[in-house]
C-alpha cells in the first residue's frame, strides 16, 4: 500500500469512527456536528472535484452524482444516510484502487526480467555497459546471480539457469559450453562467458517486454460492450431519477414530494457505472497476468474470449506435437551387425550438418579420427559420398540408392540408406518422438470442449498418420508444403467456424501465415524465435504443450467470471431500481447494492490471479 493509500484508509477509518460516535449520541446539535465532521472529512475531496468538474462541463461524473445524492439526503433530513453513502462509496473506491494496483503490480513483476547492464570484454578489459551498447559477436561475462542480458552461445563455463520469469518453469535448466542461452534468465551458480548472437532490441528479453507492455491493448468484445453500456446507463438513470422526483407528484400531488425525492436520490446513488466498468477489464487483465506468470503471453483480452470459445484445434506436427529432434529408431543391416552399420554411417556423415546426420553421430557417440576420411562429398538432394579406410560409402535417401542401381525395399519412416562399393548394406530409420505430454494435452483439450483436432504436417504420410493415431487425432494432412498448410487451414476454418473458434498451434518458423489466419494463433517454444512472437496471438514460452489446455481453461474461467460479474452487477442494480421506484428500499441498502456489488465483482475478478488450482489440475495432476 502506498503512503497516499494509507492516508486515505486512515481518513476513512477516522470518519467512520466519528460517524459511529455520532450514531450513539442522542439526537441534537452534537450529533449533527459529528455527522457533518465525518461527512466533510471523507467527502470534501469529492465535493471539490464535483464543483470543478461542473465548470469543465463534466456533468454525469461520479463525484457530481455522489455529491447531489448526499446533499439531497441532508436536505430531506436523512443525515446518517447521507454520511453513510459518502463513507461507503469512498471505501468502495479505495478498494477499487487497491485491487487495480495489485493486479497492475503483478504484470509489472514480469518486467523484472529487464537486464540493467552487461559486462563486456573490450580490448582485454571487462567493462560494464548498457545491454543496448553490446554488438553481435562480442563476449560478455555473466556472474552468478546476474541476469543474462543478451541472447548468445556459451563459450566458457557451465551453470544452471533460472527461467521461471520467462517460462513459469520452476526447475532450473543446466547449461554447458556450446549451449545457446536466452536473455532474461537468471544465472544461478557458475560464471558464463557468452558470445552474443543478437543485439538487445532483437533479443528474447526485449521481445517479451514489448509483448507484455502491449498486452491488453486489444479489447475483448465484452469490454467494448460494457463501456458502451456505461455511456447510456448513467444518463438514463439520472433522467429516470428526475422523472421519478417530479412526474408522479404531478399526478398524485406534491404533499409527498419528499418521498419521491428520496427515491430519486437512491437512483442517483446506484447510477455510477464505474465499478461495473472496472470489474470487466480487471477480470481480463488478471487472466492475462496469471497466464503470463505461467509463461503464456496473451496479446490482448480479445484472444482470451476467442480461446474460451475454442472448438477446433489444429496443430503443426514437428516441433509442436513432436520434439522436433530425430532419434534412431531401428538399425537394419542387410548382413553383419548393427554397430558396424552405424559406424559406417557415422563415418559417411561425419561432416554433414543435416539433422539425421547429427542423430547418427549422437548415437555413435565416439570421436571420428579425421585421418580415416580421405574423401567427402555432399550430393544435393540425395545424401553424401565418403571414402573412409578405402571404402566408398554412400549414405542418403532412396533416390540415392536408385541412382546406384540398387533397389532396397523402401521404409515408411524417415530413413538413411547405406551402400558401399556397389553393395546395399542396410538402412537406419528415425523417428521424431512425440512429446510425452502431447497425448494428455489433446485429451485435456477435448475435456475442455475442444471437440475436433487436426494435424498439418510436412512429413511423410505414414509418419504423420502414425503420430496422429497415437495422439487420438482423427484428421491428418501430410506431405504439405507451407503454402498447402495455408490452403488446408483455410478450408478447415470454413468448415468449423460455425461451431466455434479455431486455433492453430505451431512452432513458428514456417507457420507464420497459418498463425495469422487462425482465430487465435499460438506459437510454442518461443524462447529464441522472434518470428513466432510476432505472428502469433498467444506465445507459449517453453515447449510444454499442456500450456495450451491450461490457456483454454484459464480463458474459459476468465470469460465465466467476467460474464457472471456483469450479470450479477446489472441484475442487482436492475432489481434495485425497480424496488426503489416502488418505494421498497432505503439508502443504506442502495449503498450496498452499489458499492457492495462492485466490491464483490472486483474480488471475483481478482480470483483469476490465483491459478494454482487450475494448474494443479492440468500440469501437475498428482
Amino acid at each position, binding site marked *: 500500500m502506498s503512503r497516499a493509500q494509507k492516508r486515505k484508509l486512515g481518513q476513512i477509518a477516522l470518519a467512520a469512527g466519528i460517524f459511529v460516535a455520532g450514531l450513539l449520541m442522542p439526537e441534537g446539535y452534537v450529533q449533527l456536528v459529528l455527522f457533518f465532521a465525518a461527512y466533510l472529512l471523507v467527502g470534501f475531496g469529492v465535493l471539490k472535484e464535483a464543483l470543478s468538474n461542473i465548470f469543465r462541463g463534466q456533468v454525469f461524473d461520479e463525484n457530481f452524482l455522489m455529491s447531489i445524492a448526499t446533499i439531497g439526503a441532508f436536505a430531506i433530513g436523512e443525515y446518517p444516510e447521507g454520511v453513510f453513502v459518502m463513507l461507503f462509496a469512498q471505501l468502495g473506491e479505495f478498494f477499487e484502487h487497491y485491487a487495480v494496483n495489485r493486479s497492475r503490480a503483478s504484470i509489472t513483476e514480469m518486467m523484472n526480467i529487464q537486464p540493467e547492464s552487461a559486462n563486456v570484454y573490450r580490448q582485454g578489459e571487462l567493462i560494464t555497459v548498457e545491454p543496448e551498447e553490446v554488438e553481435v559477436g562480442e563476449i560478455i561475462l555473466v556472474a552468478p546471480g546476474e541476469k543474462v542480458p543478451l541472447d548468445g552461445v556459451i563459450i566458457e563455463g557451465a551453470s544452471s539457469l533460472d527461467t521461471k520469469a520467462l517460462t513459469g518453469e520452476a526447475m532450473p535448466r543446466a547449461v554447458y559450453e556450446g549451449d545457446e542461452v536466452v536473455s532474461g534468465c537468471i544465472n544461478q551458480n557458475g560464471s558464463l562467458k557468452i558470445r552474443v548472437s543478437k543485439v538487445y532490441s532483437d533479443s528474447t528479453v526485449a521481445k517479451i517486454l514489448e509483448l507484455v507492455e*502491449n498486452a491488453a491493448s486489444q479489447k475483448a468484445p465484452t469490454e467494448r460492450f460494457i463501456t458502451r453500456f456505461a455511456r447510456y446507463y448513467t444518463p438514463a438513470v439520472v433522467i429516470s431519477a428526475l422523472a421519478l422526483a417530479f412526474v408522479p407528484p404531478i399526478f398524485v400531488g406534491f404533499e409527498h414530494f419528499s418521498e419521491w425525492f428520496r427515491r430519486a436520490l437512491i437512483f442517483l446513488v446506484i447510477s455510477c457505472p*464505474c465499478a461495473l466498468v472496472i470489474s470487466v477489464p480487471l477480470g481480463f487483465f488478471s487472466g492475462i497476468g496469471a497466464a503470463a506468470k505461467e509463461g503464456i503471453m496473451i496479446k490482448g483480452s480479445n484472444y482470451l474470449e476467442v480461446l474460451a470459445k475454442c472448438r477446433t484445434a489444429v496443430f503443426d506436427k514437428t516441433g509442436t506435437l513432436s520434439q522436433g529432434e530425430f532419434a534412431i529408431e531401428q538399425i537394419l543391416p542387410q548382413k553383419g551387425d548393427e554397430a558396424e552399420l552405424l559406424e559406417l554411417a557415422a563415418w559417411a556423415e561425419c561432416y554433414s550438418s543435416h539433422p539425421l546426420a547429427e542423430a547418427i553421430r549422437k548415437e555413435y557417440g565416439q570421436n571420428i579420427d579425421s585421418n580415416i576420411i580421405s574423401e567427402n562429398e555432399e550430393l544435393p538432394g540425395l545424401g553424401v559420398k565418403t571414402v573412409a579406410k578405402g571404402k566408398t560409402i554412400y549414405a542418403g535417401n532412396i533416390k540415392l540408392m536408385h541412382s546406384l542401381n540398387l533397389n532396397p525395399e523402401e521404409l515408411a519412416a524417415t530413413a538413411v540408406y547405406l551402400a558401399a562399393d556397389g553393395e546395399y548394406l542396410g538402412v537406419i530409420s528415425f523417428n521424431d518422438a512425440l512429446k510425452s505430454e502431447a497425448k494428455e494435452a489433446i485429451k485435456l483439450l477435448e475435456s475442455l470442449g475442444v471437440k475436433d483436432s487436426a494435424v498439418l504436417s510436412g512429413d511423410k504420410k505414414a509418419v504423420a498418420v502414425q503420430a496422429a493415431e497415437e495422439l487420438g487425432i482423427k484428421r491428418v494432412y501430410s506431405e504439405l508444403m507451407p503454402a498447402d498448410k495455408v490452403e488446408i487451414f483455410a478450408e478447415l476454418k470454413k468448415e468449423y467456424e460455425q461451431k466455434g473458434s479455431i486455433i492453430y498451434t505451431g512452432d513458428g518458423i514456417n507457420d507464420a501465415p497459418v498463425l495469422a489466419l487462425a482465430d487465435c494463433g499460438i506459437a510454442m517454444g518461443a524462447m529464441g524465435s522472434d518470428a513466432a512472437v510476432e505472428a502469433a496471438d498467444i506465445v507459449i514460452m517453453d515447449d510444454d504443450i499442456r500450456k495450451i489446455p491450461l490457456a483454454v481453461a484459464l480463458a474459459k474461467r476468465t470469460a465465466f467470471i467476467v460474464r457472471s460479474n456483469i450479470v450479477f452487477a446489472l441484475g442487482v442494480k436492475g432489481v434495485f431500481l425497480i424496488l426503489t421506484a416502488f418505494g421498497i428500499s432505503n439508502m443504506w441498502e442502495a449503498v450496498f447494492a452499489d458499492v457492495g456489488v462492485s466490491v464483490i465483482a472486483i474480488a471475483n475478478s481478482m480470483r483469476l490471479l490465483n491459478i494454482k488450482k487450475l494448474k494443479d489440475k492440468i500440469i501437475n495432476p498428482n
Partner: protein
Amino acid sequence: MKKTFKMQNLDCANCAAKMEQAIQKIPGVISANISFMTQKLTLEYDESKEAEILAEAKKACQKVDRACSIL
C-alpha cells in the same frame, strides 16, 4: 502512424472510456484505444497534425479527470 503513450493517474475505468471516446473525435485521429489496466493510450493518427492532435488529446483527458496526463 501508430504510437503508444503512457498515461499517468488514470484512476477510473469509466473515465478512460470517456477519454477514449473524446480522443477518437479529434480530427486527424484514425483510432484511439486506452487500456485502463496498462495505463496506455495507443493512437493512430495523421502524422502531419501530430502537435495539434497531442495537445487536443491532453486537453480531452484533463477535461474528464484533471489529475490525468499523457506523458
